[in-house]
């Protein structure tokens, strides 16, 4: 379950990065639709955080340690919301570029999370 969600979230993050990167390329600030996209990705990350914590409380043990796992979960949940607020303050193409960069960071975090949890079967 958590592996599937990690994969979905990674793909969603890359899609968001491409979308906002395209907006930056076209010299446009983030629009309402972008914020809806950010909200969806953020929601997925929060769901992942909750599921991760529940799994830990049920006694599951991430391969590379609980502390690192939780740190990455929190980082994933915060990355896009923080960038969203920054793009609210920056109504230029650079606001869009900031969100795109944060989404790439999120995708990288998801790849690491997959490894930390222990790959297949989790």
């Amino acid at each position, binding site marked *: 379950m958590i592996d599937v969600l990690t994969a979905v979230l990674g793909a969603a993050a890359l899609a968001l990065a491409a979308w906002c990167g395209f907006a930056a390329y076209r010299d446009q600030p983030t629009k309402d639709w972008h914020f809806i996209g950010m909200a969806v990705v953020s929601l997925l990350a929060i769901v992942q955080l909750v599921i991760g914590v529940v799994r830990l409380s049920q006694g599951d043990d991430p391969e590379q340690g609980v502390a690192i796992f939780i740190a990455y979960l929190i980082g994933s949940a915060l*990355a896009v919301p923080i960038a969203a607020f920054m793009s609210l303050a*920056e109504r230029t193409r*650079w606001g869009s570029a*900031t969100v795109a960069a944060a989404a790439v960071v999120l995708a*990288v975090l998801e790849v690491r999370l997959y490894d930390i949890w222990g790959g297949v079967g989790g």
Partner: protein
Amino acid sequence: MAESAERERTGLGQGPGRLLVMLYGVFTVAAASRSIYQLIAQYDEAPLAYILSAVSAVVYAFITVSLVRGGEGARKAAMVCCGAELLGVLTVGTWTLVDPSAFPDQTVWSDYGMGYLFIPIFLPVTGLMWLRGSRREG
């Protein structure tokens, strides 16, 4: 909270600067959490690597704050730190290649930041270019 102060000063953290603030913020968190965890949990394995990670975290944090605060003093301080950061990446990067045994564990700056998509070596260069350019506007 920082918004009102930011507007009055020269906008180091605006426009392209906003992207730099975000990236420096990410690297502050990454380097800081990594070094804190490693210094606590496994200090004996590779003290040098972990202390260097902690130093890089401080440098990243300082640049992030300078960019957000803005102003000529912060700009100069951030330029010095970007220079130190570049020097750090080049030194540690070369060091890890020449003498890997000194670094049993990775740092943010190992192999010129390869484990972090080489962003650690691009970031100070971009930062220096941005800080140089923003003097003319201010």
